[in-house]
């Protein structure tokens, strides 16, 4: 076996998530040989990866969302790796942005960081449970 190119392309979490869910559907339909010894490894890795990915923001994304996100990111001059990390992590605080973007103090002003946070929370859907919990906390704060 020969490896021609160890880094042919980078994949976002969403792409892998979609690939695995499609594969799972296919295997469910074909039925018979899922449990043969050879397929056990594939089952295991698919299960573990899907379990992990379904808890990340990528499970709520779609191709249109990703395209729109990348279009809005274009004027900000971020590297491919940084945009990928923003897409995978969906940062909500300035600290997270500073972590994901290299030398963010020099490259981005505070307004730009705020703008990035805004774009991220608008373009990428968040966790509905967490947003409900936040909304409840806000209401409780106002009442007290």
């Amino acid at each position, binding site marked *: 076996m020969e490896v021609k190119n*160890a880094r042919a392309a980078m994949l976002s979490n969403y792409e892998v998530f979609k690939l695995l869910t499609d594969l799972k559907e296919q295997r469910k339909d074909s039925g018979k040989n899922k449990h043969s010894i050879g397929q056990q490894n594939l089952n295991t890795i698919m299960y573990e990866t899907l379990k992990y990915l379904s808890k990340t923001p990528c499970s709520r994304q779609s191709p249109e969302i990703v395209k729109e996100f990348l279009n809005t990111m274009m004027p900000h001059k971020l590297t491919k790796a940084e945009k990928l990390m923003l897409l995978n992590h969906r940062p909500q605080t300035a600290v997270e942005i500073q972590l994901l973007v290299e030398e963010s103090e020099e490259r981005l002003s505070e307004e730009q960081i705020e703008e990035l946070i805004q774009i991220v929370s608008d373009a990428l859907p968040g966790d509905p449970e967490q947003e409900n919990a936040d909304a409840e906390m806000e209401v409780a704060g106002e009442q007290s």
Partner: protein
Amino acid sequence: MFVLVEMVDTVRIPPWDFHKQLNVAIAEELNKKLANKVVYKVGLCICLYDITKLEDSYIFPGDGASHTKVHFRYVVFHPFLEEILVGKIKYCSQEGVYESLQQPAKFDEAEQVWLWEYETDEGAHDLYMDQGEEIRFRVADEVFIDTSPTGPAAAATDTPAQPGQSTAPPPEDSGEKKEAPYTLIGTICEPGLGLLSWWNN
């Protein structure tokens, strides 16, 4: 976190699988060979992405199976250096020992288990890293250990010029110490890293 790796391999289809469509049979064989296995210097293989080229199939004398050279792309888990990842603490060793902030945490990746092993607490604040907590860390280094069985005479010395020629065998059939074929060394000594709960209030 995931990359596409282009590979070439000769796939053997046994005669009892000849009724299947060639693409399907090849996909199954490739997944059987690579899924959930660590390829030396490449990463943990997840699943087949697509087949880019199928060359002619040959049958060799003495073996009824067909052999086909396949060019394909595989989805591999291989975070790049400096990438930020979120993991979960599975267990920690030597909990309760206070030391400076500079201690890195170790992320062991065996074939089936995501292990978190951290050695120290932060000395400055009493912040415990409990089991089951989610942690954000930056990849500082990666270690590939070649766990293929060594011959009786010399130890195997795999140079970086031979990537992908040894897939790690499952731990059950080696009598030696179980070493993780692929380990990620991470760091949490930066603002924003460490337990998610430290930063999310």
